[in-house]
């Protein structure tokens, strides 16, 4: 792992890198069709895309060998690269945030890269009606926590509806650490309670917003007052009310989806995306009318009651009914093959190739308000590119190279050729430790600490 860092580490300063040309490729732009041609990358950005691109002097040339280049995959729902995911102790945990606990050395980042993912939204878990703050990251493997942040990404927050947030309010909830007693049951225990928690929280947030408004007014008039105490729980909710923070809400059933949309209407904010949203197809009209995006699984179902009406046609129906749809993984494993997850929407619901690919590129980019930066191969966008050996929607496609900001962060050939070296280095450390232990035995054992 450390060796991996060492092998694949890349300089942090992207603009110092020479221009890169990816040539001899089938370029799948997603937004502007596909063609055989080249991509010129300068300063980490796509500078030119076309059938013929002039190679500047000193440019690094990557020959795609006639293979496929597509925009880096964006996973709208992931839990990798963080040291904690759930602050499950309270029903409103908006004071916590993933940014505080990013783990840039989680090998999951490298594995996601190897599956063509270049950007992911790292979300808080679903244990609470209002969860923690999310963090969008780029898979810049080898950089530190600051280095993997998606600079300038709009902040987000996780909400969760249905079975998960009410689990700790159930006397014998599945997955509870122990049987519930009146003492350790946590409100809410029903979907009604989930709505109540959210409404109460926003009611509080509005009062908090008002308190600050009054303070600023008094202060502006020159009155000597101290500001209201800052509340880290309510601040993100005020930001959500003010449209400065995107709400990503975990949900399953049609009823709870509709509930959340109406609560948002009541308090005057928008749900940016509904996550999982497995029954979204039942209320696609209402989702589209609210303007919420939907980020769903391709074919998960029946693992719990609220997933029993889940169908693999969900993405297709919602898309056809005007919802901005993406596919996500929610899993460090599935994350590595979102391309074939997208292909499933062609099988189930008959989406076109381009529609299918948009579910894992430009659509999640829009859902994160990052479509000016990523999600398609267009001039001016970040040079986040994936080279596949076959069409990315094929079951047999394999990622060969991944570029982020124009730099190669994953190279399958390199990965393969370094494996022996890693093994040897590891063997050396194992051997060294073994010898040290033998030597220590000779010197007499150390007494274990009391």
């Amino acid at each position, binding site marked *: *792992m450390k060796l991996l860092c060492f092998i694949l580490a890349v300089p942090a300063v992207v603009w110092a890198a020479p221009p890169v040309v990816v040539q001899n490729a089938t370029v799948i732009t997603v937004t502007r069709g596909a063609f055989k041609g080249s991509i010129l990358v300068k300063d980490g950005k796509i500078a030119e895309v076309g059938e013929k691109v002039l190679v500047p002097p000193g440019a690094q040339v990557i020959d795609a060998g006639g293979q496929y280049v597509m925009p880096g995959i964006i996973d709208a729902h992931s839990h990798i690269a963080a040291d*904690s995911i759930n602050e499950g102790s309270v029903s409103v945990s908006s004071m916590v945030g993933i940014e505080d606990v990013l783990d840039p050395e989680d*090998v999951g980042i*490298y*594995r996601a890269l*190897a599956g063509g993912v270049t950007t992911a939204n790292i979300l808080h878990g679903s244990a609470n009606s209002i969860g923690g703050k999310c963090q969008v990251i780029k898979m810049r493997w080898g950089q530190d926590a600051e280095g993997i942040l998606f600079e300038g990404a709009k902040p987000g927050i996780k909400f969760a509806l249905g079975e998960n947030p009410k689990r700790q309010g159930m006397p014998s909830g*599945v997955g509870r650490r122990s049987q519930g007693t009146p003492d350790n049951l946590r409100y809410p225990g029903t979907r009604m309670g989930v709505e109540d928690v959210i409404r109460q929280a926003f009611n509080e947030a509005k009062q908090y917003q008002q308190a600050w408004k009054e303070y600023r007014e008094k202060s502006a008039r020159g009155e000597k007052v101290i500001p209201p105490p800052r509340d880290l729980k309510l601040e993100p909710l005020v930001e959500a009310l003010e449209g400065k923070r995107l709400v990503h809400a975990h949900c399953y059933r049609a009823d709870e989806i509709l509930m959340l949309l109406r609560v948002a209407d009541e308090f005057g904010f928008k749900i940016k995306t509904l996550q999982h949203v497995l029954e979204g*197809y*039942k209320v*696609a*009209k209402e989702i589209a009318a609210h303007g919420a995006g939907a980020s769903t699984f391709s*074919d*998960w*179902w*029946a*693992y*719990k*009651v609220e*997933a*029993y*009406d889940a*169908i*693999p*046609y969900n993405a297709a*129906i919602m898309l*056809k009914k005007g919802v901005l749809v993406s596919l996500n993984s929610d899993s*460090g*494993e*599935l994350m*590595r*093959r979102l391309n*074939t997850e997208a*292909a*499933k929407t*062609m*099988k*189930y*619901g008959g989406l076109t190739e381009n529609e299918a690919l948009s579910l894992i590129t430009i659509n999640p980019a829009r859902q994160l308000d990052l479509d000016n930066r990523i999600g398609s191969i267009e001039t001016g966008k970040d040079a986040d590119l994936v080279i596949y050996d*076959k069409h990315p*929607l*094929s*079951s*047999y*496609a*394999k990622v060969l190279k991944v570029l982020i900001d124009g730099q190669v962060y994953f190279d399958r050939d390199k*990965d393969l050729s370094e*494996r022996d070296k*890693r093994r040897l280095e*590891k063997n050396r450390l194992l051997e060294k430790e073994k010898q040290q232990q033998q030597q220590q035995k000779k010197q007499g054992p150390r007494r274990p600490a009391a």
Partner: protein
Amino acid sequence: MRALSLFWLAAALSAGADDTFLIRGAVIHPVSGPSIENASLLVQDGKIADIGLKIVVAKGIKVIEGKGLHVYPGMIDSATEVGMSEIGSVRETADVSELGDFKPQLRAAIAVNPSSEHIPVIRANGITAAMALPGGGVIAGQASLMYLDGWTWEEMTMRRDAAMVLSFPAINTFSFSFTEGVVRGSYTDAKRNYDRRMKQLREYFESARRYQKAKAAGGPGFKTDLALEAMLPVLEGKVPLMVSAVRERAIRDALAWAEKERVRIVLTGVRKPGNTLADLKAKNIPVICGPTQALPMEEDDSYDAAFSLPAELHRAGVKFAFGSFGNQFSRNLPYQAATAVAFGLPYEEALKSVTLYPAQIWGVDQIMGSIDKGKSADLMITDGDPLEVKTQLKRLFIRGREVDLESRHTKLYKKYLARP
């Protein structure tokens, strides 16, 4: 031969059976041999009667136009909970894990709910048969090979005791902590626990053998014991043990144990076989792979460790089949195989490992697993390669009977697509 075909056909037609028909002009992929373009396939009384470029049949026979389509044998999922569990998180809907450590008398087949919503969903992707596995304890019970069609579990049952499921004891010092991730515990404790469980296992087999002898002797005091009775086909080598062993040491231990006990085994759950592959090949021990679409087990493992394991098994000459190990993703069985292809497994091998090889491993290759004369007409008609995600299944036949491709999913799809 043709005359014979005609005779059968006439007989079938007169009986009015719908398990007699001709598929015409399709690409037929027998799997056991090379594909045949623009060929025909005759199904008679639920069995494959003929395959050829031209088959002469009587007038009036049901003809399926196969132009532009492909015919494959139905796929077999070698590890599922099909019909035994409906909603994973709801205890009341799950009949997979029984109490107790040794319960060879348990039979999965009878807990397969033929009305499960999973069955139409799974078979709609071309899976015509599946192993239903009991779980829990050391000997979990008998796994049953089920056709994914039938009014009752009895009708669905292809082989009630296709395998005996054994979770092989392993020394495991890993545990997962919610707050700390993977943590390592005491080897001494793990070893002690392992020794205890191995002793139990040995003693159980010992008592089964004593029972076998006592039964053969047929003394007056002999009393039937249902559990030990169920062990007899295992001891006699008629039923293989489906032994889960993940890492090299467990596999090594399982092989040594099986040799000593003189029992036939099929390995499952294999993830890190290490240096055991040559041994597996030499002893002709098959492996049920899967899930291939899995994360590496350890941080230092190659990112594609699970993807490339089937290719590794193939290179070592080990026979294997794929299993989905669940219900939810059983329909994705072909994609497990396809991922293995992307990472080095020859395509033909991948196709065989979801059709012919599982049939061989479960001892039913005389009946299913390929398109050959005399075999059960378990067929899928597709518009392309079934391992490719976007390929559509057009029609499906199990034992010659066409199976409805509608499911809970398609019904909800149609209903809500039509919502005004």
